[in-house]
């Protein structure tokens, strides 16, 4: 895999919140690149409406990325950066530090 491809975080948007989880290939790549990291397997963050997903969660994405990977977003930038992918819509959004 190209080391400069972004890390992908999958976002399963539900009515009352969104479940975030690393894409399996990104997870494998990070396990190889960061063997000492202790990431969370998944994170659920609630929201009042689905429309809140981007507006409310957007500013939280750097923190969510850190929790799911075990390292800072600045560190992740050296590994190709991070994008959020919403499987239900195919939408892609960049996570900025």
């Amino acid at each position, binding site marked *: 895999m190209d080391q400069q491809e972004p890390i992908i975080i*999958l976002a*399963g948007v*539900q009515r009352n919140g969104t*479940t*975030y*989880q690393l894409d*399996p290939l990104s997870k*494998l790549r990070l396990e190889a690149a960061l063997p000492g990291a202790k990431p969370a397997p998944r994170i659920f963050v609630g929201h009042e409406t689905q429309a809140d997903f981007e507006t409310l969660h957007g500013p939280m994405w750097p923190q969510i990325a850190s929790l799911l990977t075990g390292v800072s977003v600045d560190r992740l930038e050296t590994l190709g950066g991070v994008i959020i992918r919403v*499987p*239900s819509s195919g939408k892609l959004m960049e996570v900025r530090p």
Partner: protein
Amino acid sequence: MSEFLIRGYNVAVPAVDRGDDLFVVEDDSGSLHRVQVKTANARPLKAAGYAAQFSLPLRQLGDPQTPDLNYVLAVRHADRWSDFMIIPREDLYREHRVHGIGSVIAGDKPSLQVYLSFRSGVVACSGRDLRIYRNNFAVWPPIAH
């Protein structure tokens, strides 16, 4: 459903078919498990054993949810339900993304065709052995009431 009841869980079936087939509930804690059941008739293989094919919505397969989804792939062979492949969505998606199992059928609603062959104790799918999921209800350990 009977397998879940025997294990001490409660089971609910949605009145309207919108995706999930079953909700399995731990009454004491209120924990909810989502289950989607797929069935297939097996056909015999030339060199012993049998095989069955399932079709899963690709978007659903890659969509993490809370609570997350478990697939039960039920195989009918020789006039009985011979095998239940119980696979968490996350595991099946990993097998597809990392090891390439299944064949993607493109379209407005893309799907993943999963071909399982049962032979000599091995459950093969695209070169991977998925026997650990065969009749494995460990996601739902028995509850003592």
